[in-house]
């Protein structure tokens, strides 16, 4: 594996740790009744959003999913606006209209989480199409999971992206479940990257818990796309650390499998890289963690004290 600078590794670790802290803190807010509706935690999958987004540039595009907090954070999202949105506040990313499943940061190129499984796939395709028509060197990345790969839009979009040589990267976060349905029960070949070659699409599979492996493959995919050699299908194998959403105990997830993936915790792996490859000290790692925890506290404070959306204003809109 290539060697990475301390600064780079520190940046990756900060993102991994931020996602972890964000999810854990917001789950607490959920349990306190401050957050309502659906909340699908990204716990266990942090390395995928972190590694992929680190390989992108500011003017690229991403589309996200119902499990979208990690993508938003890795894309540089503002924690304050994110928590505020989860609390339904006026100061949130979507002025309290969207909630967890619809957080978007359009002007920054984050085209949004999505309540429809697979909904983001054609949106990402279209963003890549627009960039290609305008002759820009931008890339569009769609995050989706194994469940979405069985929806028609997956096949249709992969085909179109291939036919039109689009700068499009379809990242399948194969966490092996759609809610409680295991991927191998609803498809014959659960190595999903194997579907790419049939469409003539460059396809790779990575360990989704290893941030450097994800980063390296994403970087290559981005390079291909910028050279007009896209699209790329990138499968990242991973596993959730808990059930499908905060109220799902995940009883169907075998204990040994969960324990195995927890022993390959993406946040711990990222920390190890920082200490071993980056030669950072324990104290330097702690400093990053403290800064993240502080930022999170500020974000919660901001969100909790933010105003509710005005009902009067809303009624004028509708």
């Amino acid at each position, binding site marked *: 594996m290539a060697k990475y600078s301390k600064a780079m590794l520190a940046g990756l670790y900060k993102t991994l740790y931020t996602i972890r802290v964000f999810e854990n803190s917001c789950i607490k807010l959920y349990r306190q009744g401050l957050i*309502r*509706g*659906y909340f699908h935690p990204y716990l266990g999958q942090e390395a995928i959003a972190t590694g992929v987004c680190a390989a992108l540039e500011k003017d690229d595009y991403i589309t996200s999913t119902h499990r979208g907090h990690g993508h938003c954070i890795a894309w540089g999202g503002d924690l304050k606006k994110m928590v505020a*949105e989860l609390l*339904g*506040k006026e100061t949130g990313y*979507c002025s*309290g*209209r*969207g*909630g967890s*499943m*619809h957080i978007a940061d359009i002007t920054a190129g984050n085209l949004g989480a*999505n*309540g*429809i*499984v*697979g*909904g983001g796939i054609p949106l990402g395709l279209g963003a890549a199409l627009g960039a290609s028509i305008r002759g820009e060197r931008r890339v569009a990345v769609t995050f989706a999971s194994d*469940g*979405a790969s*069985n*929806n*028609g839009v997956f096949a249709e979009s992969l085909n179109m992206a291939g036919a039109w040589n689009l700068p499009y990267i379809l990242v399948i976060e194969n966490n092996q479940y*759609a*809610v*409680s*349905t295991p991927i191998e*029960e*609803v*498809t014959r070949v659960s190595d999903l990257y194997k579907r790419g070659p049939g469409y003539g699409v460059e396809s790779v599979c990575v360990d989704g818990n290893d941030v450097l492996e994800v980063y390296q493959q994403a970087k290559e995919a981005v390079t291909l796309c910028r050279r007009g050699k896209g699209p790329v299908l990138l499968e990242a194998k991973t596993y959730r650390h808990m059930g499908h959403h905060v109220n799902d105990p995940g009883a*169907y997830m075998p204990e040994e499998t969960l324990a195995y993936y927890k022993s390959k915790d993406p946040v711990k792996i990222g920390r190890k890289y920082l200490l071993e490859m980056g030669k950072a000290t324990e104290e330097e790692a702690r400093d990053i963690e403290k800064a993240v925890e502080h930022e999170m506290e500020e974000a919660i404070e901001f969100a909790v004290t933010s105003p*509710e*959306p005005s*009902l009067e204003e*809303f*009624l004028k*809109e*509708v």
Partner: protein
Amino acid sequence: MSTTQETAQARTRTIMYREALNEALREEMRRDPKVFLMGEGVAQRGGSYKVTTGLLDEFGPKRVMDTPISEASFVGAGVGAAITGMRPVVEILFVDFAMLALDQIANQAAKFKFITGGKGKVPLVLRTQGGVGSGLAAQHSQSLEALFYHIPGLKLIMPSTPYDAKGLLKSAIREDDPVIFIEHKLLYMTTGEVPEEEYSIELGKADIKRRGTDVTIIAWSHMVLRALAAAEKLAEEGIEAEVFDPRSLVPLDKEMIIDSVKKTENVVIVQEAVRRGGIASDIASIIQAEAFDYLDGPIEILAGKNTPIPFNLNLEKACVPQEEDIIEAVRRMVSGT
């Protein structure tokens, strides 16, 4: 208690709406081996709202199938199985996701009988659920019944009580035309009485959930519960509201609607779905055409705001008719102000 229930057998049990649906599926699957279920998580998980709990154990994986997230194709497969002799009951988790299967619903299921000159049958039930819950936001809260109402060739059922849910689902499964059966996420845990004995309810028969003489409140699905609560408060003021539940929107029991209107001479229609292009407007036009001379004044429609459902709870609440809205509308109408 509703009129239908009054005439039902005296021996009853109190069960939840979701249990009533489960019983209907179980009874029909026992009765007819051609009935089978498919949908996301209906087998091993027993359904996201626990409607299909225990059915995998009893009927096995050939008759209770978990599907991939492939709405267009598993609904289409339901149509294909139906036209070749099966009686599939297909579940779509949220009516919002039925949009992914619209071709199969509107162009295939709804058209098949007609384009085959009446020779083809499509005994398919598409079970789904809709409506505002609590902070589920724009893609998980819609009331989309008007889309199906609009398409000739589909039947459309929206039960409000466990009794209706069970009796109507049983009839829907025995029906030879495709039936869209829309439940409501806020109804699954509500309880009501069902007879010990087997029963079914004919599709197309309305039900009066509360008798009254001053005003007819027409409502379906979850709005029936709001209308009933409003009617109780109005009774304290001496206003007797009749709560009229069509239950079946296609076919619609026009005759019974007109009878109720002739009696009360005042009509409020309550619909959770957005106002524009809604079923309430169509029912109002039917009443105007057939009972205009009996009306005391204009028909009032209370409906959802013409907007996607917001995540914030205060805004969400403002988007659909509330009990107080119904009370106020009836007061305005009865007092003539």
